[in-house]
């Protein structure tokens, strides 16, 4: 039984790592369709990874070990994060040693390494992207924590599997206005954290407007592949956090069985399809915010999450 659980844990990580490029491809495909443009195949990201892994890596002359190791650190952190998030099952051994606050810390670790690596090579754009990223980071992290506090209060725990368990218990089946506030706030944080419109434009070629892209501008080949893969994985992880908090239906909660996991996987894919197309729709209809409007956007996310807490304490307590 225990061995099986550990095997499933590995399986969850593999599913996340393997599905993340597909999810990115799906979002790209929806975006293309909404823009009346011929869409690239949904497995385009895999092709990109294959291409990048086959290329020779070039490094800036001033790059130190920090720049070289950051892609591995960032990628590893995202895989580890996937191990904590109950995307398919709540029976996750790793999740017992790391709660949702640790998860926020993991994302922060990736952010710090990325920003340091971007500054390491000493180009203007790396520094530009890094300082913008840190500005976003100090606004998104509190907002994300506030969103999580909503769920913590409701479930009485900071462990994500327990939150899923609690949300799925029949006694919980009532309307929670506080979760509506938290959900909107979470979507706003997701957009900002994953360099999506209206905060950052993942498909821009304009170096002066970039945040995330400016930080990875100097990476090539396998380093770039890992950075790209890590950012897809981050988007996937965020989507799964969203499912965990707000729509946990289908996640296997009891003893782990092949059938339960297969159903959970189907449910996850269905949820990803919906979330991906919603993300694409939102991105297609949005213009990018002026950089200094981004703090207003994220302050709004924070405020909504706090309102969720208040609503919970006043109406649901």
């Amino acid at each position, binding site marked *: 039984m225990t061995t099986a659980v550990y095997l499933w844990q590995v399986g969850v990580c593999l599913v996340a790592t393997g599905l993340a490029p597909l999810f990115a491809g799906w979002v790209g495909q929806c*975006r293309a369709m*909404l*823009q*009346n*443009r011929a869409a690239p195949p949904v497995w385009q990201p895999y092709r990109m990874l294959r291409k990048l892994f086959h290329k020779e890596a070039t490094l800036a002359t001033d790059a130190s070990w920090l720049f070289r190791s950051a892609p591995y650190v960032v990628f590893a952190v995202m895989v580890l994060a996937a191990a904590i998030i109950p995307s398919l099952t709540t029976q996750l051994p790793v999740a017992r040693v790391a709660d949702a606050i640790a998860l926020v810390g993991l994302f922060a670790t990736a952010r710090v390494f990325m920003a340091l690596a971007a500054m390491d090579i000493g180009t*203007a754009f790396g520094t*530009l992207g890094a300082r913008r990223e840190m500005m976003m980071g100090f606004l998104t992290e509190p907002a994300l924590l506030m969103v999580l506090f909503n769920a913590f209060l409701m479930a009485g725990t900071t462990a994500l599997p327990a939150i899923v368990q609690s949300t799925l218990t029949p006694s919980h089946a009532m309307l929670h206005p506080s979760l509506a506030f938290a959900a909107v706030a979470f979507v706003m944080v997701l957009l900002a954290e994953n360099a999506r*419109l*209206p905060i950052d*434009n993942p*498909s*821009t*070629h*304009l*170096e*002066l*407007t*970039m945040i995330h*892209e400016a930080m990875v*501008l100097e990476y090539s080949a396998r380093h770039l592949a890992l950075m790209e893969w890590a950012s897809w994985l981050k988007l996937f992880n965020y989507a799964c956090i969203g499912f965990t908090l707000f729509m946990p239906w289908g996640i296997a909660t009891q003893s782990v069985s092949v059938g339960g996991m297969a159903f959970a996987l189907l449910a996850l894919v269905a949820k990803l399809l919906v979330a991906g197309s919603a993300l694409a729709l939102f991105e*297609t*209809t*949005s*213009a*990018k*915010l*002026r*950089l*200094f*409007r981004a703090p207003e956007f994220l302050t709004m996310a924070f405020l909504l999450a706090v309102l969720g807490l208040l609503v919970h304490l006043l109406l649901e307590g």
Partner: protein
Amino acid sequence: MSLDVMTREGMPLPANVPARRLIVDAHQWTAVAQQLHEAGAYLLALWGTDERDRSGLFRVFAAFLASDHVVVLQHAMAGDRPVYPSLGRWYPVAIRLQRAIYDLLGLESDDGDTRPWLRHSGWPEDRFPLRKDVSAAATYPNRPRPYPFVPVNGEGVHEIPVGPIHAGTIEPGHFRFSVVGEKVLRLEERLGYTHKGVAKRFEALSLLDGHRLAARVSGDSAVAFSWAYCAAVEAITGTTVSPRTAYLRALALERERIANHLGDLGALGNDAGLAFGLMQFSALKERLLRLNQDVFNQRYLMDYVIPGGVQSDVGPRLIRLLLDEAADIERDVVALRAIYDEHTGLQDRFKDAGQLTPSIAKAQGALGLVARASGIERDLRVSMPWAPYDDLRPAWVLRVEGDVAARVQVRFDEVMESLRLSRLLLEKLPRGSVSTAILAVKAERIGLGVIEGWRGPVMVALEAEESFAIRRCHVHDPSWQNWPLIEHAIIGNIVPDFPLINKSFNLSYSGHDG
């Protein structure tokens, strides 16, 4: 001598617009320039010629746009010490033009800014490639030199160097930002990376072949440049083209304007993060280009305007196609304009970004659509209409705000106006031939072509031998006037808004660098 008397007394200069030429000494050079400035004229172009093989002199020319005619000043200098007074005090754009003239011909102005402008490292400091005694085939070792940018000091001020190689596939130009945080304190441009020696190349061509090179000076303004060149050829040979030719040329010019505006409107949406806009406008532009292929046998109309005529006539079936297409484009543009106008996020990016106030635009001598978006009435199609615009009477398209939003609105309005003009041109298309023979070069041998292209007035000054050899051909792109304006428009804006502001100007690197 009053300005009026002087410009009226000057000899008429063959051109497609009313033009006069004044031969002046060094004192009159500045005196007349100052008087013209006070009368509200603005500098169109500044160029030099090497006449040492004939008279032992260098000449420098300045073309000004007065309210209803062009004035060209001509000033001669001794071949051994060519120095002339700077016009930078009244016409700031003259400073870069003077630096370019020095790089190419070695004629010195007395302006303080003596940094190279077009010369990067392609030829040595003491070589002047446009001089007659320097071979076009000469090659030099490439020796890059540091370029002294103007430093900005202060607490927290740092520089961001951008380009000439960019993250996207765009033309090369270097932008040096001095910023505090994200706020831009100063921008300094460095251009000249696409200098190809077009002027020197012209001198190896025959008068009747030069239009092909002219069309390629800046590919997005192929019709404007080739028409200006052909107008200059027709001026110095005393050729009058048929009304049908003039109408078809205007049709091509308006189609070029529509195509570029559609492309820019899409790109402006994209630079504000709305890729949807780019896709829709690109589809519209592509439709227009494909019809160009069907009607004119080329997508970008590079070789449509030829000396004495146009390459091909347009029959009734094609006229029908063009009219139908105009109706379709108009319908789609109206729909897309509503989307742009009502998109809060997009309008928030456009409004107040990169504002160019009318006073700065006026003082700096802005041209073309940039000037019109800052409330300045500068459109030669209206103010000094050449055939067939004297029949068409285009309407003024003006906005006073001078921000990105105003430049977007001017583009929308101009697309509509150009569609109206195209319809008018097709409906009133006169009968006749579309080619006139070019016979002989007139005694003056010097002529001017000035055409209001989509970006602003394009000028070609042409001097030819009786043998039909080109002696000197100077092409001027309005980007010269408008590049420095971006340095003004960006001040106080934030760094990530620069690409949008730059795109709203959409100036030519190739046309500027020559």
